[in-house]
């Protein structure tokens, strides 16, 4: 049932997967911040060391979309969202380098950024 080529392909995919999953883990963040992006444009950058609640409101011709992002104890999480699937709300809190919470329906992305040794960004994994 399983051929030799299957096993080789499996090992290649597995190795590629392990390689890309280890990349963003290198280096700790000095001053972690969360960058909120709406439709590709930066909505705001907030420090994780300061507790606050950020309301992300979009007024468009298609209606009003709201996401509420809470920063607490050095972590942030999506408290509520006006979208249907609530995947971003169910997503746990994030605090580490390169971690993201995405709300696909509202096109909202919250990502952890900050200065590292070389000022590297999450973009390293795409490069």
């Amino acid at each position, binding site marked *: *049932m*399983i*051929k030799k*080529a*299957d096993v080789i*392909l*499996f090992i290649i*995919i*597995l190795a*590629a*997967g*392990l390689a*890309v*999953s280890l990349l*963003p883990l290198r280096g700790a963040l000095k001053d972690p911040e969360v960058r909120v*992006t709406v*439709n*590709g*444009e930066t909505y705001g950058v907030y420090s994780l060391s300061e507790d606050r609640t950020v309301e992300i409101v979009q007024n468009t011709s298609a209606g009003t979309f709201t996401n509420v992002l809470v920063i607490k104890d050095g972590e942030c999480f999506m408290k509520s969202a006006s979208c249907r*699937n609530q*995947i971003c709300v*169910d*997503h*746990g809190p994030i605090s580490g380098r*390169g*971690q*993201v919470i*995405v709300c*696909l*329906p509202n*096109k909202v*992305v919250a*990502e952890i950024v900050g200065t590292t040794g070389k000022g590297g960004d*999450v*973009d390293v*994994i*795409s490069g």
Partner: protein
Amino acid sequence: MSSPAKQDRRTSITAISAMFAALALIFSYIEFLIPLPVPIPGIKLGLANLVILIAIVRMDFRHAFAINCARILLSGLLFSGVFGMIYSFAGGVLSILVMYILYRTNLFSLVGISMAGGVAHNLGQLITACVLLRNTAILTYFPVLLFSGLISGIAIGILACVIEKRLPEFN
């Protein structure tokens, strides 16, 4: 111009294609009803791929592609919405292309083909998400989606192998 026997065969292939599309749609519906309890969009079993795999092996690329497109269009209209349809389409087209190419090499079993298809599907969806959100930060999901595509692809591939052996010949 075609002989009656040839026409019969064409009719039967059309009927089987329609049946396959309906079955794939049902599988999409089952997955829509019972989502996996993970907070990351894009992780799913890919039951509908079972149908597509068997269509690639038993019919041809043209029919498999048409079945997949019909399934995506209908499940998009019925369950997942237009945006869901765009993601499904990107994943579905990339995965069927990869699976067909691997199938044509004659080197891989259904397990290997399905495994690559699962990974390609998730990659297609992730690239679509990057384009739609105009943000590359979500590429950090790539490893998770790669492994989930790998595992679900293998599971579906094994299932397809077992089912394909027990299916009677078409006509």
